């Protein structure tokens, strides 16, 4: 057995936590309990978990507008997250950030980012800190296929190579930037090839395959941690829901989502594989499902019950460290 069962159970639990969290977010959004814009990452759980499962709390990730999965995979408290997404005072960011601005520095999660291409330059910085201080921590940035066309991201690739930064660039290619096809917006034939041309190792992987993705990430992380510089990964995946919750998704093909859910569900693929290989039993995973559902139920309950911030004291707090 190439993976020990604790690892597999952890991977499964984390993916499932993301899935249930996202599904519940959608429900709570529709019920009017979640304000603003929410971008769910269900369908893409395998990448978040494969990327983060070997990272420590001092390794850094930088995320995107679609960041719930990365946060959960990096160890952020889902109850704190749910409260945050509901805008509550006891949320991870005291309700000031919301879904698009979750961060948890104690967990090495330096922020979702509502600006496409905002996070990659920052992860270069985290990697630079590690290199300068000699900590051996690495940084992993997440970005979508769409973000790969943002100049800030492109120049960050070169910058990371020049300064030999321990930074793994993870590009989740879910085929869409909002309602625009990656086929259209990426002028190149292969994003992995384009990234490689910047002078770093770069690999393509089927992101719906947890194990394949995990193995690439392992190599990439080792490369970065060993001081060999940055590494880029393009992981192909599927966005199960709209760009944002409420997106009518007119641009998607007939049956596209149905088929994807049937054939390209990374959690289903994981389950089938571990059962087929005899690595885990269905019951073990079913038990986790029950626990996860209960956990998210608690998160929602606590989220709904949590107090709102107080404009008197909170509106003007924390603009600066010192005044």
């Amino acid at each position, binding site marked *: 057995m190439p993976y020990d069962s604790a690892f597999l159970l952890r991977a499964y639990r984390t993916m499932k936590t993301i899935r249930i969290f996202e599904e519940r977010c959608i429900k709570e959004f529709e019920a009017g309990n979640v304000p603003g814009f929410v971008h769910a990452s269900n369908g893409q759980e395998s990448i978040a978990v494969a990327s983060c499962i070997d990272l420590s709390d001092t390794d850094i990730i930088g995320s995107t507008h679609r960041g719930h999965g990365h946060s959960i995979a990096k160890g952020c408290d889902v109850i704190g997250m749910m409260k945050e997404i509901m805008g509550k005072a006891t949320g991870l960011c005291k*309700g000031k950030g919301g879904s698009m601005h979750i961060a948890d520095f104690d967990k090495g999660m330096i922020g979702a980012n509502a600006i496409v291409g905002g996070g990659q330059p920052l992860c270069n910085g985290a990697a630079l800190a590690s290199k300068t201080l000699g900590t051996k921590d690495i940084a992993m940035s997440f970005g979508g296929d769409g973000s790969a066309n943002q100049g800030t991201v492109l120049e960050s690739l070169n910058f990371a190579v020049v300064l030999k930064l321990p930074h793994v660039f993870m590009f989740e290619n879910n085929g869409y930037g909002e309602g625009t096809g990656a086929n*259209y917006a990426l*002028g190149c034939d292969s994003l992995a090839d384009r990234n490689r041309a910047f002078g770093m190792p770069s690999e393509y992987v089927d992101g719906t395959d947890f194990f394949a993705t995990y193995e690439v990430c392992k190599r990439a992380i080792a490369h970065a941690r060993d001081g060999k510089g940055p590494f880029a990964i393009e992981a192909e995946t599927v966005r199960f829901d709209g760009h944002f919750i409420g997106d009518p998704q007119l641009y998607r093909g007939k049956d596209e989502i149905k088929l994807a859910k049937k054939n390209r569900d990374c959690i289903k693929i994981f389950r089938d594989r571990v059962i087929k290989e005899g690595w885990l039993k269905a019951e073990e995973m079913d038990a986790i499902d029950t626990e996860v559902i209960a956990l998210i139920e608690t998160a929602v309950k606590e989220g709904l019950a949590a107090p709102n911030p107080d404009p008197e004291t909170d509106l003007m707090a924390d603009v600066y460290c010192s005044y």
Partner: protein
Amino acid sequence: MTNKIKGPSSIKTYREAINDALRQEMRRDPRVIILGEEVSGGAGCEGQDDAYGGVFGVTKGLMPEFGRERVIDTPISESAIIGAAAGAANNGLRPVAELMFFDFIGVCFDQIFNQAAKFRYMFGGKSRTPMVIRGTVGAGWRAGAQHSSMLHPVVTHIPGLKVVMPSNAYDAKGLLIQAIRDDDPVLFLEHKIMYDLKCEVPDEAYAIPFGEAAFPREGTDVTIVAISNMVHRAIQAADELAKEGISCDVIDPRTVSPLDEESILESVEITGRLVIVDEAHERCSLAADISSIVAEKGFSSLRAPIRKVTAPHAPVPFSPVLEDAYVPSVERIIRAVKDVLGA
């Protein structure tokens, strides 16, 4: 807010009025093109074309009429978008570029302030850059700190740019048509909270000149200058105050660069009192700007301190209770008016 409308008209939303202006100008002038992210939507996808028509639906239906050649979906590359618009404007087109959220100027500001804004001057008057950048501004959508800014003070500071901020559908249509016909780069800032706001809008094309304020309420006790969505709160405040016998002169500059200084100064000459309402942060803001103009040119008329009612010096918070406290409220406007009246 009654506009003298002759000829056929209909009730339109702010969104529809903007769409109408774009459509009429595109029909009239083949040089007008639209570009930006999701301005049509569905490019390279299996499903429907024109899937979005802009994420706020403002450009819906234009691609089917004018084709992908003139309604151009782009990669997420704002510098390239604005640069393409500016370069095309220099070379015979009249592009309307969309910044989905005006907050995204951060990744393309150079093309706006160092390039488009400066060409004409730097090149000794030899170039024209007839482009419009449409962008959504403002809080109220619970979209958080990076999608809710106003930022008009930043661009108003820059010479060479014109900055337009319509507060209603009628102005939106007329000012956008003017913006498209104008030979200078124009920033056309749409407050996202107003897209469903309706009023009567003429069917035919009309242009509203820049630099001419509107006067949604007339009065003699206090001048209130308000812009964009704040106009509606100012009107509400004025109407409340009217019940208490306080008469407010509400001025909507409509364009902030150029600014109709004269109308403001004339009003203050009568009222002697000024309150400025601006959803932007207070430092180096439009509110400060207008205040300073009056403190310089209208000082002798002033009978009370000039009050600014602005957003605080803080990013826009996500939590609805905080965001609601962040945006200048009708109550704060009323309080400011009473303050300057010593009431």
